[in-house]
């Protein structure tokens, strides 16, 4: 089953410690070697993006940055046998940050990509 992980975070003013960056790369290598990490990338600050909104029958385009307190930081696509496995990989990623970057707060959303199994007859 395929899952998309979307990471939203409030970054501390300090730069990310080198130790954390090394740990993230190592975990990424492990997940790739295990055959479960299919794709991932970091996202530039929302300043580089834009928001396209449809409301009340109108469409508007607003350049970033967005006013939210948290920024979207990265995404990853995992393919695992169960949701719990995807949760475990995401938790490992989050724990690295928690342990290695004081003050870092974030939310990782794990969303299931619709697959043939979602259309199976019960």
């Amino acid at each position: 089953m395929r899952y998309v992980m979307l990471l939203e975070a409030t970054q501390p003013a300090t730069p990310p410690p080198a130790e954390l960056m090394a740990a993230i790369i190592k975990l990424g290598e492990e997940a790739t070697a295990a055959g479960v990490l299919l794709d991932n990338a970091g996202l530039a600050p929302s300043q580089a993006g834009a928001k396209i909104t449809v409301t009340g029958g109108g469409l508007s385009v607003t350049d970033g940055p967005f006013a939210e307190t948290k920024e979207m930081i990265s995404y990853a696509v995992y393919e695992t046998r169960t949701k719990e496995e995807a949760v475990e990989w995401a938790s490992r990623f989050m724990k690295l940050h928690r342990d290695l970057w004081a003050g870092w707060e974030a939310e990782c959303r794990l969303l299931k990509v619709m697959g043939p199994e979602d259309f199976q007859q019960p």
Partner: protein
Amino acid sequence: MTTTDSAPDVRRVVEAVYRIESARIIAALARMVRDVGLAEELAQDALVVALEQWPARGVPDDPGPWLMATAKHRAIDHLRRQENYRRKLAVVGRDVELAEQTSAEPDIVDALDDHIGDDLLRLIFTACHPSLTTESQVALTLRMLGGLRTDEIARAFLTTEATVSQRILRAKKTLAKEGVRFELPPPSEVPARLAAVLGTIYLIFNEGYSAAAGDDWSRPQLCADAIRLGRVLAGLLPGEAEVHGLTALMELQASRMAARTDADGRPVLLLDQDRRRWDRLLIRRGLTALAHAEELGTLGPYGLQAAIAACHARALTPAETDWARIAALYQLLSHVAPSAVVDLNRAVAVGMADGPAAGLEIVDGLIARGELAAYPHLPAARGELLERLGRGAEARAEFARAAALTRNETERELFARRAAG
């Protein structure tokens, strides 16, 4: 401790962590106790400990290392018991030879983490050891490398849990009886042994790929398991072109999964598939893996099949298909892995690239040699070529022949429809 609101079933969490870690744990323990069957049992013991402790005490913050450490303790306990036993034997003055086999155990434990890649490879080669039956190789591979439970394997292969358990037990006994050591094959045997490993993984993939509509979902899931094993192997043997070739082939074939059947579960032929339903992420990964294989040198049978699949994957519409390239790739494939089915596929590709008459010539060559006499796709391909040549009556006769030969009901319907004109 990790706190979870509306705590998910801890049992499922334990199983998830075990699935992620089990291959590495079994591989590490096999190095310690030098017995794959025993290593797997000790890893299972650690799983049981987790199932007992985690629901009560909570999931440890670092569940992976926790499981590994628990399993290693079990292995050390086992070695100590063995050592004690040997000492007692030695006291009675019997055994010297046995005692020599155990070296200082802390060294083994310290060295473990450095060898995990090699140990995983040893585990794969052992699971696919030539002394085992194909069925046992499949069961052991899924169990020890894929982290599947026995009941999951049984469901996927439409058999009973008892049968799979028996298979695994027999396989472990065979490995012990044959004195199969936990080691990499000597260089001279690597090509043949690697071919066996790749064959096992591809067999698991095809078992999933051949799942029929209405089958339990765990059957097509086997495709994902096989691809995962292929990716693991590609990471362990980055210099082997065929490992990348097989992985590319599986990623590319799996990319068409959703388009292979219609809403009623009937198969849809490649050229009739809705290509918008092809999985672009898997295509991209498949093409990348194929590029790796190509960089490493000449493509083998899996690499060539992947290259053919890539021709289809690159074509956004059937009309854009590079049939000349496909025909050339089939020609190469027929040299490295000669088979009449490959020739038949080449005939179809040539028929698309150079016109139906050229394709028909190849098919008729096969018939003249008496090849594929009972293979329904031969008359079906011939019928297709004849139809394009405007020889309708002959074409319909070929489709009737194909309908009579196939044992697949939906295929039979398809052929019968075309036989009726």
